[in-house]
């Protein structure tokens, strides 16, 4: 029990009518059949994907893809006919795009195409194309932001490996069979695609300015600015940018200035209870 909790005063307020959160769209999506079980990536789209993931070198990149009905070998299927990227910050193991970049992308689309650019893709450089925890979390957030409309999500790497899922709901995802149209494009088209992708990468991709060093005892009380470092609160956590003094460096919750011990170490009271610092070593879980 923290001292500040003993001094918390709770004031009862007059009961207010409870406002429900609409969940009809969640119920409708639940156990829904996947709208896409097979996806053909057209040659143009594949060339663009290959260009984008190679243009960024050893960094990850992300974007969206246009999906349309197509007939392949006399069979009706869904095909990725175009690929695009958005303003983003590329890193070697992560890629991030702010919500306003995505809104800017949506607004740039012709109105009659907004329901076609549904493919959510990103690259894993040379690593496995299995979704990470970060990927599953973000797809869950994306589902909510899409008003619970199911969507396809794809991960690709430089080896040409592809994994795709139809995200139906938080409880349900199905694998999508991915086929690639192996149709060699003429040189002029390849050069045009390359130049288009190169221009977009130069304009839209930003690289984080990072430096790495091992934390020392002095760093516990001094926020690091504009650096990326492995924090010792979690084995795989990485943080970028300037530390925000008012936010817990582990979970992001607001700090409580009344708990000075936790506050000085930029931890919320719960995380201060959960972890204690190992000087120069790995995270030590208090549990």
């Amino acid at each position, binding site marked *: 029990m923290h001292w500040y909790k003993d001094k918390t005063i709770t004031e009862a307020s007059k009961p207010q009518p409870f406002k429900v959160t609409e969940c009809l769209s969640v119920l409708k999506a639940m156990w829904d059949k996947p709208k896409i079980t097979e996806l053909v990536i057209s040659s143009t789209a594949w060339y663009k994907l290959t260009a984008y993931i190679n243009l960024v070198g050893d960094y990850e990149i992300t974007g969206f893809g246009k999906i349309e009905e197509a007939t392949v070998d006399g069979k009706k299927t869904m095909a990725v006919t175009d690929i695009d990227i958005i303003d983003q910050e590329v890193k070697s193991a992560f890629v991030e795009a702010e*919500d306003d970049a995505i809104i*800017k992308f*949506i607004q740039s689309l012709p109105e009659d195409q907004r329901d076609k650019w549904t493919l959510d893709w990103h690259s894993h450089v040379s690593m496995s194309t299995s979704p990470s925890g970060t990927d599953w979390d973000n797809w869950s*957030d994306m589902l909510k932001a899409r008003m619970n409309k199911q969507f396809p999500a794809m991960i690709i790497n430089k080896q040409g490996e592809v994994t795709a899922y139809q995200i139906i709901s938080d409880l349900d995802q199905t694998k999508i069979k991915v086929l690639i149209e192996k149709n060699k494009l003429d040189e002029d088209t390849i050069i045009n695609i390359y130049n288009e992708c190169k221009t977009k990468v130069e304009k839209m991709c930003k690289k984080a300015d990072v430096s790495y060093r091992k934390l020392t005892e002095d760093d516990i009380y001094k926020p690091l600015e504009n650096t990326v470092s492995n924090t010792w609160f979690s084995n795989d956590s990485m943080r970028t940018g300037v530390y925000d003094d008012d936010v817990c460096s582990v979970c992001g919750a607001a700090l409580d200035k009344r708990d000075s011990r936790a506050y000085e170490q930029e931890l919320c009271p719960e995380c201060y209870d959960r972890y204690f610092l190992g000087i120069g070593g790995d995270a030590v879980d208090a549990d």
Partner: protein
Amino acid sequence: MNFDEINNSLNAQSAREIEVTVVTLGGSEKRAVNAGTTIRDFKERYGLTDNRMVDSEGRLLTDSDILSSDMQVFVSTPKRNG
């Protein structure tokens, strides 16, 4: 100043329904709400409290903004993959 008249006109406005077109990566969805609903109430009602919402001109809609007529809003969340 006739407060009854003012209050009655406000009540009449809130009883009027307006249509909000929510545009996302998944396309557009229409939602009917009472005029006078705040953006905060709208976001809470549709589980969009963690999402950025802008109008068709790109202006950020804050929690205290009020929906008073049919409009189009654009919604998204940050993209983080790795």
